[in-house]
């Protein structure tokens, strides 16, 4: 039978507020256990939550970025369950009145087309702490530093049909939240996590099949792999005439398979009800408009602009626009050099290669966009040839200096483009190699282009840094003069 895959994602993104969603404790990552948990985060008796306005602003920003309805009245609810790293015995979240309603984004497919994925809702909630199971001699440790970190949970419609689409959606969301500056996007620190809902149905059937939920997948690659593993598992069962159990599963990246969580971990009646310690959050259109005025240009708009204004190909524009820092770096360098295509090639070529090699982000790179722009400028005015430019670039990357022009001088990379000087050198090369000249002149006219090669080599050998283009022209002229 032919099966259709149905995928929906729930993405948790930590909001980049300085303090927690309901307390003044810091949200910085990596502090000693429980040093960033105040009485509110510890859930001590008598404490009360106060909503962090920054989290609201960021959530509204996100809503506007995905063209969503903004909830002018949102309400926090308590989701009740016992777990040691959930200090109050409930999570404060938004059930019926989320801050962000129906919206949508566009993902790019392999065939170059785009596909719209609708976003059901996005709501604010608090993160839990962490249980640490090692090093406590049969007991568990609890670290509540993360407890109360603001999260936005982004729920998609079940509109993705392949694992690849799901990964593209996750990537696009990552790109949007980092563009907006509302999430640092650091997957390795858990700043973004993804729950994948996967089901299969016979092609053509309207009704959904039974779904499973793969919890807490935290890389683009693993989203794709986990979903594919789950699709395979479900298909095997269905093909054998079996039934899918609705359950929560975990992905084991080492074995590349999903496994069911213990049912105890998931069977819960959460007994939601509105949190009586927090008033409904009421905002007006003026507030929304003020937040809208702070929205940066988003990936899709940037991509379109790169194509139309700078004449980049769709692929180049897509790659460069996906990351805000990369896009800014590109634009700054390109502007300095007044050459967007040249800059696009360099950023996607040497710059990206350096980032991959050094495993750093563009902000950590020791060459600035202005410096790259200067290098490109020197290529364009023929001061540098390509090889020289790469040498300067690498010197900057290696921290061997920070003055582009100074490096060109000290490395002796300045190209000789002066025709008079080159004419003298060429004349000497021709005079010193009469046999070669004879051979050249004996060559039929249509084959002389290739026969010019040795002269070019000799000229460049005689004087490093000569502009090859000028050498060509001069040689051509001189040899023609000889016959």
């Amino acid at each position, binding site marked *: 039978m032919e099966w259709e895959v149905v995928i929906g994602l729930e993405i948790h993104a930590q909001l980049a507020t300085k303090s927690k969603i309901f307390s003044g404790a810091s949200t910085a990552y990596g502090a000693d256990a429980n040093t960033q948990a105040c*009485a509110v985060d*510890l*859930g*001590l*008796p*008598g*404490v*009360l*939550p*106060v*909503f962090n306005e920054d989290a609201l602003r960021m959530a509204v920003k996100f809503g506007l970025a995905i063209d969503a309805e903004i909830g002018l009245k949102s309400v926090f609810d*308590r989701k*009740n369950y*016992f777990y*040691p790293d959930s*200090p*109050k*015995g*409930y999570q404060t979240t938004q059930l019926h009145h989320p801050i962000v309603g129906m919206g949508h984004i566009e993902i790019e497919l392999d065939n170059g087309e785009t596909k719209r994925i609708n976003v059901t809702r996005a709501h604010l909630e608090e993160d839990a702490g962490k249980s640490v199971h090692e090093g406590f001699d049969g007991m*568990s440790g*609890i670290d509540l530093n993360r407890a109360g970190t603001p999260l936005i949970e982004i729920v998609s419609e079940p509109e993705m049909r392949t694992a690849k689409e799901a990964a593209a959606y996750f990537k696009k969301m990552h790109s949007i939240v980092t563009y907006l500056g509302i999430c640092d996007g650091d997957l390795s620190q858990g700043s973004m996590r993804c729950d994948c809902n996967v089901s299969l149905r016979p092609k053509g059937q309207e009704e959904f099949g039974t779904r499973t939920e793969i919890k807490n997948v935290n890389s683009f690659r693993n989203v794709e792999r986990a979903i594919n593993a789950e699709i395979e598992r479900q298909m095997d069962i269905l093909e054998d005439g079996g039934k899918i159990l609705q359950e929560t599963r975990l992905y084991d990246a080492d074995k590349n398979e999903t496994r069911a969580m213990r049912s105890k971990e998931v069977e819960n*009646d959460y*007994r*939601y*009800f509105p949190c*009586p*310690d*927090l*008033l409904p959050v009421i905002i007006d259109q003026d507030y929304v408009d003020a937040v809208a005025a702070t929205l940066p240009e988003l990936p899709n708009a940037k991509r379109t602009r790169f194509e139309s204004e700078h004449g980049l190909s769709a692929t180049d524009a897509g790659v460069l626009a996906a990351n805000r820092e990369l896009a800014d770096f590109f634009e700054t360098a390109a502007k300095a050099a007044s050459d967007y295509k040249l800059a696009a090639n360099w950023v996607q070529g040497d710059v990206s290669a350096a980032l991959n090699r050094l495993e750093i982000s563009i902000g950590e790179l020791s060459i600035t966009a202005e410096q790259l722009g200067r290098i490109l400028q020197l290529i364009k005015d023929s001061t540098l040839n390509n090889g020289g430019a790469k040498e300067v670039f690498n010197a900057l990357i290696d921290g061997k200096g920070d003055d582009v022009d100074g490096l060109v001088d000290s490395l002796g990379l300045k190209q000789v483009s002066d025709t008079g000087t080159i004419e003298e050198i060429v004349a000497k090369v021709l005079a010193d190699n009469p046999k070669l000249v004879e051979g050249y002149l004996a060559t039929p006219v249509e084959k002389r282009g290739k026969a010019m090669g040795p002269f070019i080599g000799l000229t460049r050998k005689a004087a490093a840094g000569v502009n090859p283009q000028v050498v060509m022209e001069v040689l051509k002229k001189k040899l023609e003069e000889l016959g």
Partner: protein
Amino acid sequence: MHNKTIAEISRDLASGEYSSTELTTDLLNRVKQLDGDINSFITVTDEQALAQAKAADERRAAGNADAWTGVPIAHKDIFCTNGVLTTCGSKMLSNFEAPYDATVVSKFNDAGAVSLGKLNMDEFAMGSSNESSFFGPVANPWDKERVPGGSSGGSAAAVAARLVPGATATDTGGSIRQPAALCGVTGLKPTYGRISRWGMIAYASSLDQAGTITRTAEDAALMMNVMAGFDPKDSTSVDREVPDYTSSLDNSIEGMTIGLPKEYFRDDLSADMQQQVRNAIAEYEKMGAKVKEISLPNTHLAIPAYYVIAPSECSANLSRMDGVRFGYRCEDPKDVEDLYCRSRGEGFGNEVKRRIMIGSYALSAGFYDAYYKKAQQVRRLIRNDFTNAFNDVDVIMGPVTPTPAFKRGEKTSDPVEMYLEDIFTIALNLAGLPGMSVPCGQVNNLPVGLQLIGNFFDEGRLLNAAHKFQQATDWHLKTPADI
């Protein structure tokens, strides 16, 4: 000295009649002598009290004294006190020391008051007889076989026994007014949001309100001047100007319209009780007030609605008492579930467990609409009853309790009978309105209270009406025989 009111003490301290140290020493001695029988204190903070008194005397000597400098009070053990036990009347918190002061506590500290200690109460404020306290029942100073009412039984008994001139208290369904009535003292439950709930251990967050128990309305006004006001740490506190509550005490009540709800004078109120309340109303008429019969048609729905909403909220509020981070922890837990079950099973008393179970049931999937949602709708109806009534009248008056103080053990076997104790008080909490209980007579040598109900934030008028009554009568001056 111990018979003095707060207003008198304030004047005496100012005139040098006695020092705060002398007064504090005297009261602490009284606590030692008398409280063995009454059991109104859970914790007596002798050393701290004497240190505060000494500091107050020094401030006065230096000429820096205010109205509250050196005036002794005590706090219901539901208010967190930095470094002093805060038990909430429960085994669960029998070892809990908060690392912070409740806003109410710090306001009294800042005003220069002396705290004698922490007062007994029903466990987690759940009860109407102070029999559910883990620290033993409190005796009514008028008849030690009888209950003082609850949940602020310790506060009412301590003031009635002249152990302290004023005490903080809280009221979720009558917990200030009912014990005040049963102990022949003056109780004020302000408008919801008038006083910060920060540091006040939550029973039912949307109903809990801090207030006062004193001998006179004037003293209640003095305490309100300290306690009332917006607190950025409590999102449900209301940002609204705080008047000087003493300034309106002596206003004439000529022409004031008093509403008598016919639902409050039915058969469930004995003829004796009715007579005392009617006598008090007659006193008001003598002073020039007008009386009007009104109807609060949804009164009969108040108890059922309350016993859905309050247990629902408490079922979540008390989840943080899990034995993990503070409070009682069972011996040798096998695993985390055993830790939860036994810590909570052993740490909570029966009434608390009963309400947690009622609340968990009411919020569970499939029942939410029938119980919680319905109760919230009823709550609106009850609020509308009052809003309509206040279109026609200035103050509503009626009984506080159906009977005077009952015997210990009389109602413990029948929870519903106990719940009916609050039949006249509970509706105010659902509506969020302010109310008072003022001594207005006796039945069988036991005090009877008159309830005054005001419009939102109309505490000034309530205090004015109560004060005028106390100027005209001497019920509030009557002292239990043994005291």
